[in-house]
């Protein structure tokens, strides 16, 4: 294999990692709070707001029901306004982030739902404010579940990022399609797939480790 080819693969790997890291971090920063909101505004919860809860739920569902490839092209004007371009890795990170936020939010909501209501009741009996219940009870108790949610999200982002080529985002998926499929180079195809497999395994193992470490049940 030529050194040009190796550089191409290396560059594509870094592009994929960059897209996944940027979108994963931003989506976590926005998706975890959204997931908490979805949970605490439920009826009979500590900040029950049934109307707000329904609105958030509907928005989240819309976000989750749009196929990623359509979302990517549909928000091109928004992407351009945000990062100044509609092509490239930064441009691809925008739809990846938008797709990941509701995904994380629902998973986090599910993780919070696993917490025994008795713990919240105990905190209330000690005079905890809703904010204290979120920061001292809900989030620490759901830490393992949140790590699981983030791991699933990151792995999903790796596979979504393969579609980023459609907006000139680059990355391993794009490389595999352009060189492996369009130019009939099965070696490139295999190498990109192999790197993606290793990447996913790595993220999964890291995630599992963090879940194990935070689980004292």
């Amino acid at each position, binding site marked *: 294999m030529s050194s040009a080819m190796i550089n191409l693969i290396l560059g594509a790997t870094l592009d994929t990692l960059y897209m996944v890291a940027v979108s994963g971090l931003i989506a976590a920063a926005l998706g975890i709070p959204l997931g908490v909101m979805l949970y605490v505004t439920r009826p009979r919860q500590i900040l029950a707001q049934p109307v707000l809860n329904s609105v958030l739920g509907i928005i989240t569902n819309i976000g989750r029901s749009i196929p990623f490839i359509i979302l990517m092209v549909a928000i091109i004007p928004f992407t351009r306004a945000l990062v100044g371009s509609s092509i490239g890795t930064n441009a691809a990170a925008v739809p990846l982030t938008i797709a990941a936020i509701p995904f994380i939010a629902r998973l986090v909501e599910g993780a919070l739902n696993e917490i025994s209501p008795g713990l919240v009741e*105990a905190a*209330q*009996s*000690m*005079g905890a404010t809703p904010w*204290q219940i979120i920061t001292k009870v809900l989030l620490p108790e759901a830490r393992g579940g949140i790590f699981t949610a983030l791991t699933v999200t990151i792995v999903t982002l790796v596979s979504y990022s393969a579609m980023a080529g459609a907006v000139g985002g680059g990355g391993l998926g794009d490389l595999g399609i352009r060189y492996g499929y369009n130019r009939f180079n099965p070696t490139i195809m295999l190498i990109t797939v192999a790197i993606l497999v290793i990447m996913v395994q790595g993220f999964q193992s890291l995630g599992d480790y963090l879940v194990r470490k935070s689980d004292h049940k």
Partner: protein
Amino acid sequence: MIRLQNVSKTYFPTSKRRNARGIEALKAVDLHVPQGQIHGVIGLSGAGKSTLIRCVNLLERPTTGTVTVDGQELTGLSGEALNQARHRIGMIFQHFNLLTSRTVYDNIALPLELMGMKRGDIRERITPLLELVGLDDKARQYPAQLSGGQKQRVAIARALASRPRVLLCDEATSALDPHTTGAILELLRDINQKLGLTILLITHEMEVVKSICHRVSLISDGELVEEADVGDFFTSPTTQLGRDFLNDFLELEPPAALIERLEETPGEHSHPVVRLAFSGDAVSTPLVSRLARECGVDVSILQAKVESIQDRTLGLMIAELMGDAHDTRRALDYLRNHDLQVEVLGHVQRDD
């Protein structure tokens, strides 16, 4: 210390259906627990025990009525003021409700963190508490590594951390085995005496009431139907439900073979079978021989036991009174006149 006045709680169904009637979990409950007392509320499941205890610290807001704890009316409070008031009310639960993500030490620290206490002050508070509940060597362990009894000890230490005036116990021993239950009850009695803490507990176990309560209320269908000192309740409950609880607890039922032969109405040739409960002076009276001598009735004892309830002695007996109809009626009158609780269970045909 704790005063509930006319407290009721109605749960309204969430459905939008018109005319949907609410469920009355509590009906106009009045309850007063003086400073330093251990008060038990006993009842069957679904009687409203949980709702009652949750109304005391307003985990459930009463539909009507007022709740006053330590001279402060809680029902008038909300938000920050209510949270401040809750710092002075500790609560423990059937399923302990410890945070799995925190060590024993950090669980006990939680209420103090919530109050905004400094780390150093927290440490000073927790060390004696760990000693009090006998867990000084477990500070760094997680709840999952502890037994049920140890978890409840952590929960008790956590409830005491903010130095409350009142401790609420929600079925605190119901998930524990009998031996551990005894140890936890002993701890509760200990802190009641050492710290002068007022304790309100709910339970379905007579054993709990018997071993630590000073006073007891009986709850049925959302109403407090009976309230008495524990000694009185165990010797002479005034309601049928109270008698049922007592008989279940004492396991004093006539033998099955006898129950089959019992008839409700007295016949020409039948004997009454009675359940006798006696306390106070009657315990030391030579009852059986007096019946024989003074009423000419023979007494066949089917079951008997003597229980000591705190500082009182309670005698119980199931017996068949053998004699003719006139004599047995005299015998029953004699027993009633000597301060015995007499319950005629039925009549059996004479064997002869």
